[in-house]
């Protein structure tokens, strides 16, 4: 058995991280405070495919035309490649000038390391035009370190035809209702839920939403502060999830399934192979692109928000989700903030929304949303009374990954609800 990860490349890999700080002296960006001096903005974004790729390029071109002293070097990167590349760059102490950020725990680490700019004062004039929920993940200790251009939420996407076939006429509004619906669908010989067990994060949505509905938003925030998840509310979340798992609602081989692969969670939905999935605002487009027909299930797709749990403290109007935004590196040239502001004008946000790939964070740009599924998500989000970022992004990376791992263990049946909160607490306390 020979693996192609030789000792050299393996240690190089570790060395890249470990040795990176040795290179931290090598950043040397032109740090001019004069916005009119010639300057270059390095921009890393992850909209590396149609439809957003050309839209960003056009916006950058427009800005350059208006500001001849500014050069914008765009580097579109694939999601996972971006994460790895950014990790190396930030650990070396030289982040790009303008880069993708999801906010939360990772952004906090970058803030703690002094790698990103505090934008609070610079953005005061226009920040009020954004949805407050969207800004929450980028606000750390009351200061703003990133600007969201896209925001969405997780909810149940369901196949109307399959629901009808199973005799389900109304979408459930309580957790007990969800369990009933699952039973009915399963009795009709249909797979109730598609889940990507290999990717872990899709399963974390269930546990996190349940914890939010049972303990309320404050329970999640308090857990982050006190580093204690070993509370009755979190245990109850695991127990409710276990009720669902015990019904065996997932597709065959779900523990090995990925989210976006040709036989993964999205494809199962897109091919009409399962009745529902709990997923973010991008679900319709990924269902379509990974389905055999490349069209998904079209207008048979419906959305309903995560139902309340009887006796829970959380309201049904509180949303769980996240989006995309940009943070600004510490050595960024002076006009970077101005350029970022230009990306978030009502006009440009509307243009982004028209692609269907972005749910705008600027309130007035909501009129640009044409896709009916996006509209439903945007409406739910606009009326949301509270917002929680995905737990695997909100918490420090180690805690977020542990949440994902632990929920996977709960679903596989190897750990109990009480054990997983202890495991998560142990990791949280070690941070």
């Amino acid at each position, binding site marked *: *058995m*020979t*693996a*192609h*990860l*030789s*000792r*050299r490349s*393996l*240690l*190089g*890999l*570790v*060395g890249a*991280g*470990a*040795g*990176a*700080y*040795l290179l*931290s002296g090598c950043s040397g960006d032109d740090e001019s405070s004069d916005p009119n001096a010639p300057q270059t903005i390095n921009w890393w974004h992850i909209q590396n495919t149609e439809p957003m790729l050309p839209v960003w390029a056009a916006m950058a071109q427009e800005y350059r035309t208006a500001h001849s002293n500014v050069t914008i070097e765009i580097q579109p990167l694939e999601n996972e490649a971006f*994460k*790895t590349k950014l*990790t190396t760059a*930030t*650990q070396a*102490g030289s982040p790009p000038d303008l880069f993708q950020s999801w906010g939360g725990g990772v952004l906090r*680490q*970058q803030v*703690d*390391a*002094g*790698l990103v700019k505090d934008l609070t004062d610079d953005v005061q004039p226009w920040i009020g035009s954004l949805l407050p929920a969207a800004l929450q993940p980028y606000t750390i200790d009351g200061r703003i370190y990133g600007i969201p251009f896209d925001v969405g939420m997780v909810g149940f996407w369901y196949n109307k035809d399959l629901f009808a076939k199973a005799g389900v006429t109304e979408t459930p509004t309580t957790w007990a209702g969800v369990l009933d619906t699952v039973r009915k669908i399963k009795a009709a010989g249909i797979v109730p839920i598609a889940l990507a*067990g*290999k*990717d*872990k994060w899709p399963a974390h949505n269930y546990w996190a939403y349940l914890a939010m509905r049972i303990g309320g938003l404050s329970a999640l925030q308090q857990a982050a502060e006190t580093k204690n998840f070993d509370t009755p509310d979190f245990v109850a979340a695991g127990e409710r999830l276990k009720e669902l798992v015990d019904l065996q609602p997932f*597709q*065959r*081989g*779900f*523990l*090995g*399934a990925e989210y976006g*692969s*040709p*036989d993964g969670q999205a494809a199962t939905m897109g091919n009409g*192979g399962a009745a529902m999935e709990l997923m973010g605002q991008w679900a319709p487009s990924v269902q379509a692109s990974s389905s055999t027909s490349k069209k998904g299930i079209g207008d048979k797709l419906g959305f309903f928000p995560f139902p309340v749990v009887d006796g829970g403290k959380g309201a049904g109007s509180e949303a769980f989700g996240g989006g995309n935004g940009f943070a600004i590196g510490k050595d960024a040239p002076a006009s970077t903030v101005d350029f970022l502001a230009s990306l978030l004008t009502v006009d440009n946000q509307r243009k982004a929304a028209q692609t269907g790939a972005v749910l705008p964070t600027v309130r007035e740009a909501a009129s640009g949303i044409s896709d009916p599924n996006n509209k439903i998500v945007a409406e739910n989000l606009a009326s949301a009374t509270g917002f929680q970022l995905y737990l695997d992004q909100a918490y*420090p*990376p*180690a805690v977020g*990954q*542990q949440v994902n*791992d632990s929920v*996977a*263990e709960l679903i*596989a049946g*190897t750990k109990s609800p009480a054990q997983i909160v202890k495991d998560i607490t142990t990791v949280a306390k070690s941070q």
Partner: protein
Amino acid sequence: MSSPSTMSGPRRGHPGAAAVPGPRGVRRVARPRPGRRVALAVFLAPALTLFLLLVIAPIVVASYASLFKWNGFNLPENFVGLDNYLRAFADPVFRGDLWRALLLIVGSLTIQLPVALGLAMLLNQRLAGRSFYRLVFFAPYVLSEVTTAVLFTLVFSPNRGLGDTISRWLGAEAGAIFADPDTVLIGVFLVVSWKYFGLYMILLLAARQGIPKELNEAALTDGATTWQAFRHVTLPLLGPTIRIAVFLSVIGTIQLFDMVWVLTGGGPIHSSETMAVTMYQYGFRRFEVGYASAISIVMFLLSLVFALFYQRVVLRRDTAGALTVQGGQR
């Protein structure tokens, strides 16, 4: 593997090329003239620089980082001594990694290599379509690990994969092989074996063809059965190649990463995780660079200790004169 038979007798002395100092041989190197020193330095410098920069420096930095609790940002400051190592050996996942590495090594030594040996012997016979079979069996080795892994996720994809469909006709459930914690390691082992048995087969086949026909003929003439000829003539002469194959196999298993990462990501619930996967998870997902460094150092030490031990004890005969200077033999 056989004990050294008479065949290794003359070999041990290596009276041939390696040990005899030529007119410009070993002795001169020990005390070079100044001009040669410069030449040596010039020719050694590039390789040495690369070696120091890409091999030694990362090892040193990683060992240093492994003594800290460090998320990779700025300089490591929180010195924790050997805590990261203690933590690794107390962690059920990492202990599981060691156990799984052992299982995979045992599996490859008892199943994969014998199969490769058997095929090599078979394809050494006169056989219709021999070169075609050789090509077919060697082909998987040419594929990259990632391609192989993607290929097999498709083959064993539940409900859609060819392997799954066929297995269901036969009443089995191959589509669940990577989704079931109890079977996933077997699945990984099969895929890794599928990819690498061809390499060992070719190595052994080449070694087999290097054995002079006369030896086997002589044995058969003397009344040995085919099995006896194989056991006492062929097998001992394949010894050096088998020993190298075992070495490659063990080191490869300790460092197994790409295949597992793409096939299963280490899951479900860590049941196919290897040391390298655990290291990656901590280093690049959880940003616990100190802990990940400790894991990488453990991997390095395991490989190093095994390599040294193996070279010293098992490969000594095969490498004598090449890696070690046999002072007495000059």
